[in-house]
């Protein structure tokens, strides 16, 4: 088994962009390990358009967007293994993996990039009461069945959760001949992008029922109906129940970074994002183990995944080539006042280059606010935002020069 300097776990958008950047930064021996039978990850089932507006200034489908990176991986002659599952990552970066042709094998790379993506929150984790029949799918599972295998998972559909995959699947199921009765959302706002609500629901006359949830599932073998109720303070309001005859319930109720390997390796995870806590170089508490993309925190646009992963690839290259500056001071990044989390959670100004990119999400819908960043007592960044919503990720770029004094960075929302 060849022993790569850099092993990238996951060949989706994050893994591909990280590999390309690491190669361009001078790492010769890179190996991508992908569990599916082709590169591209979840993009392969995202056959709708809207990808790449930021990166390529054009609208691509998911597979087209992936192909741009897969082409680069091939041109740069970066090695990858398909149908390969990583079983274990050890704290010393030993990677144990297997597939049908190589069998069980171990690698001892100098650096690892975690790019495993995320998974969907299932019905069980939502504690929806009722029967447990066939016909309940996460939106992504339904998307795979429809878009990759040509199978229709249902004809009369209710969707719970207005995450982007749910919204996209409302349109897809409609186009494939199913009747989507409504999209119910527990929160008083949608978790998806505004443009998806317009293009996937409004354009097809599919109602979005905010502050609603599923309180019962009927049907012992296959779903025969569900009951929705209005919600106040997270609890259903008695008397507001509405019944829907349907054969399918799709769930789009949140994505969870997939960090079982990271946790077992001893990577410190953020209780808010479920992803690793990283510094400005996207390096975890384990030296030489980096993370990017949805395994780190769930993104709204793949363009940002690619950008973040490219940064992780560049930093991993510096780690491998020994060209990192000494660490110097470490500033913790705090978030308050509606800012739920930040990536990174620590900044080493001496390692930051010219700018530090901070990404975060807010915990509710806010209007006429400004994003403010303080280093110590001084405000080093301020930008007006007419609307902030949990469905959209915010990006802030800080000048590293402004981080020279002060002992902590704070990201907050202020009256605009």
């Amino acid at each position: 088994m060849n022993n790569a300097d850099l092993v990238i776990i996951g060949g989706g958008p994050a893994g591909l962009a990280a590999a390309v950047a690491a190669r361009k930064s001078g790492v010769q021996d890179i190996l991508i390990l992908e569990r599916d039978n082709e590169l591209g990850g979840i993009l392969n089932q995202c056959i709708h358009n809207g990808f790449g507006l930021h990166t390529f200034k054009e609208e691509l489908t998911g597979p087209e967007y992936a192909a741009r990176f897969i082409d680069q991986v091939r041109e740069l002659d970066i090695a990858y293994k398909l149908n390969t599952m990583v079983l274990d990552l050890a704290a010393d970066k030993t990677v144990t993996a297997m597939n049908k042709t190589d069998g069980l094998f171990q690698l001892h790379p100098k650096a690892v990039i975690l790019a495993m993506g995320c998974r969907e929150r299932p019905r069980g984790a939502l504690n929806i009461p009722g029967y447990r029949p066939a016909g309940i799918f996460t939106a992504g599972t339904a998307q795979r069945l429809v878009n990759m295998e040509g199978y229709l998972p249902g004809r009369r559909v209710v969707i719970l959760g207005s995450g982007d995959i749910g919204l996209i699947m409302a349109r897809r199921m409609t186009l494939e001949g199913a009747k989507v009765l409504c999209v119910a959302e527990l929160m008083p706002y949608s978790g998806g992008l505004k443009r998806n609500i317009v293009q996937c629901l409004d354009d097809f006359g599919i109602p979005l029922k905010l502050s609603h949830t599923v309180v019962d599932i009927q049907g012992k073998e296959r779903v025969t109906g569900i009951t929705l109720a209005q919600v106040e303070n997270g609890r259903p309001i008695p008397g507001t129940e509405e019944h829907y005859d349907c054969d399918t319930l799709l769930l789009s109720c949140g994505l969870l970074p997939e960090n079982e390997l990271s946790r077992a390796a001893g990577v410190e995870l953020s209780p808010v994002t479920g992803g690793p806590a990283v510094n400005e170089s996207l390096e975890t508490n384990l030296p030489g183990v980096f993370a990017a993309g949805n395994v780190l925190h769930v993104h709204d646009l793949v363009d940002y995944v690619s950008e973040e992963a490219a940064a992780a690839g560049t930093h991993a290259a510096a780690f491998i080539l020994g060209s990192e500056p000494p660490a110097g001071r470490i500033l913790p990044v705090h978030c308050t006042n509606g800012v739920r989390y930040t990536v990174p959670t620590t900044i080493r100004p001496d390692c930051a280059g010219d700018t530090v990119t901070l990404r975060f999400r807010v915990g509710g819908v806010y209007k006429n606010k400004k994003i403010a960043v303080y280093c110590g007592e001084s405000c080093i960044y301020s930008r007006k935002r007419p609307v902030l919503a949990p469905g959209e990720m915010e990006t802030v770029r800080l000048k590293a020069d402004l981080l020279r004094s002060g002992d902590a960075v704070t990201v907050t929302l202020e009256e605009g």
Partner: protein
Amino acid sequence: MYDSIIIGAGVSGCACARELSRYSANILVVEKEEDVCCGTSKANSAIVHAGYDAAHGSLMARLNVEGSRRMPALAKELDFAYEQCGSLVVCLSEEDRPALEKLYENGVANGVEGLRIIERDELVLMEPNIADSAVAALWAPTGGIVCPFGLTFALAENAAKNGVAFRFDTKVTGLHPIKGGWAVETDGGTLEARCIVNAAGVYADTLHNLADAAHPMKITARRGDYFLLDHTAGQHVRHTVFQLPGKYGKGVLVTPTVHGNLLVGPTAIDVDDKEATATTAAGLDEVRTKSGLAVKDIPLRQTITSFAGLRAHEARHDFFIGEIAPGFVDCAAIESPGLSSAPAIGAMVAGIVRDSLHLKEKADFDPTRKGILDPKTLDFAARAELIRQNPAYGQIICRCESVTEGEIIDAIRRTPGARSLDGVKRRTRAGMGRCQAGFCSPRVMEILSRELGVDQSEITKSGGGSKIIVGTNKDTL
């Protein structure tokens, strides 16, 4: 004419089948569902009770203690997951101490070994997350945990290996005596046998009443709701923790499972509909509230699924086993601790049938069965060698539980084998993990389709009308 027809392929029916397969007899198990272990046996606390709880002198007490004693050897013989982790009945108030002592005495009288009342200091050392109000506990070192699917499949496969036939998707609709035996009417035709074993779970009363209308039985379906938590919560307790009913009401149990999850429940809600396995918001709320009585800080946020099962409750709260009419043997009212007692129940029923039919032991009975090989249990070299020999063990299908294609193929090719997603899930754990089959469903469907030689559109979640997909894209446009 069969020598014996066993009605019901739950853990009791399969235990009876396995024990009867020791004898020279032509035996059939009929089951209305598509697989074994589809009723009460699939949705319960997955524990082996030590036997201190059932009233001294009852059949339940005798069979529980005997079943619990037989379980370790049976687990080796039939290769299913079982662990003697011990159980604790926690007393939350000094006022309740007399009840704890009574329970201890009942257990001693039942013949349960190793029982001891332990005080709070020792209890906290054993269970750091025990409730602050806990004052003492009954410690039963012979209490255990078991995979209820694993036990039932093991019994069924071993019965099949020794000649027992299984007929699924066959619902018994009527029953009447004929010369030298019984005629069993089913939706798939009439079957005849010299002896019937009624192991029909919550429906055992219906069959009983057909055989002996003069002494009617009524079985009530008693629903229990549960939460199953992720592996990350599996260490929250190390033993099965019950709460002694008392000042603070009747609690729920909190237990690790043999697969490293944490299980919390059940409720006890009598329902009219014997198919009503739906959880309810009220039931789940009750588990949530009561779970904290004996164990603190249960991380219910790590719930991966909730489910409900039905116990076959009869008013006298004892097992009802016996030949109630010539050639008709009841194995009825098997509620908790039915799973724990199954090995003893099987032996008792088989003994009754043997005596009734004068059966002779077979010389070639094989008491052993190998479970589905779990490559995770192998060391690196052995696992690598396994993949070299059979590359299907190199392909992970279920990422959450690390289940390989090789295991799934094995599950499908067994007798009785998996024919649905749930059949694969209960045999291999593919789909049992934290993503609850979101990732592996399409992949398992492909393997089922290939192995069974049917189109993917025919694949079901659990037989009957539980099809996963309903058509193809644009087929109605």
